[in-house]
């Protein structure tokens, strides 16, 4: 086994262990965090990074051009789409009135888009129009 092969295996397995560990941390956050928003932050950030690191580890262990195209495209798409999905889920959960944890200090929106309250006529016109 050449030194390069050892280095490749070390880097690949290291990336995979790191990535799977991050997905496990996200699962722990999903289990333990107090409200929907902190759970959302755990899943969106930790699991995204975990999946990307795992895929990069797979690429390091099995390098070829076709694999590189697929994995790099998947990682780029993941980094582009995951924040959008997380933001949409967070906005939807706030608008559907999911409660904040008791220890929350700030609520910047101040319940303005909460359920059951029509948006005021002057502002949030696009929200009113869409519903």
């Amino acid at each position, binding site marked *: 086994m050449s030194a390069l092969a050892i280095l490749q295996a070390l880097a690949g397995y290291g990336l995979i262990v790191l990535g799977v560990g991050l*997905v496990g941390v996200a699962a722990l956050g999903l289990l333990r965090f107090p409200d929907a928003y902190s759970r959302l932050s755990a899943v969106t950030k930790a699991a995204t990074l*975990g999946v990307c690191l795992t895929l990069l580890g797979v690429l390091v262990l*099995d390098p070829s051009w076709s694999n590189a195209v*697929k994995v790099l495209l998947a990682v780029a*798409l993941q980094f582009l789409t995951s924040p959008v999905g997380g933001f949409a889920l967070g906005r939807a959960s706030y608008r559907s009135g999911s409660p904040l944890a008791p220890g929350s200090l700030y609520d910047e929106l101040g319940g303005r888009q909460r*359920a059951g309250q029509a948006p005021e006529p002057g502002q949030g016109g696009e929200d009113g129009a869409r519903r």
Partner: protein
Amino acid sequence: MIVIDIALGVLALALLPALWRIAVGPTDADRALSADHVFFVFLAVAGLLAIRLEDSVFLDVVLVGTLVGFLATITLARLVDRRRS
């Protein structure tokens, strides 16, 4: 190879909290979030299976799964928004 097997076991365990959240999660937002998490775990499992089974067709599965997961997340977010749980 043993590392891959252990990693697959850890990912299987990482699905259990999502199951718990879908069953008892206080709001619909938690359930949609758990579906998102299941998608992430599925992508990681498909990537690892490409190494474990030495078949790079699983990387195509990862690529398609990324796009389908994004669309599913957006759709679930709109559904949660409409439902006003």
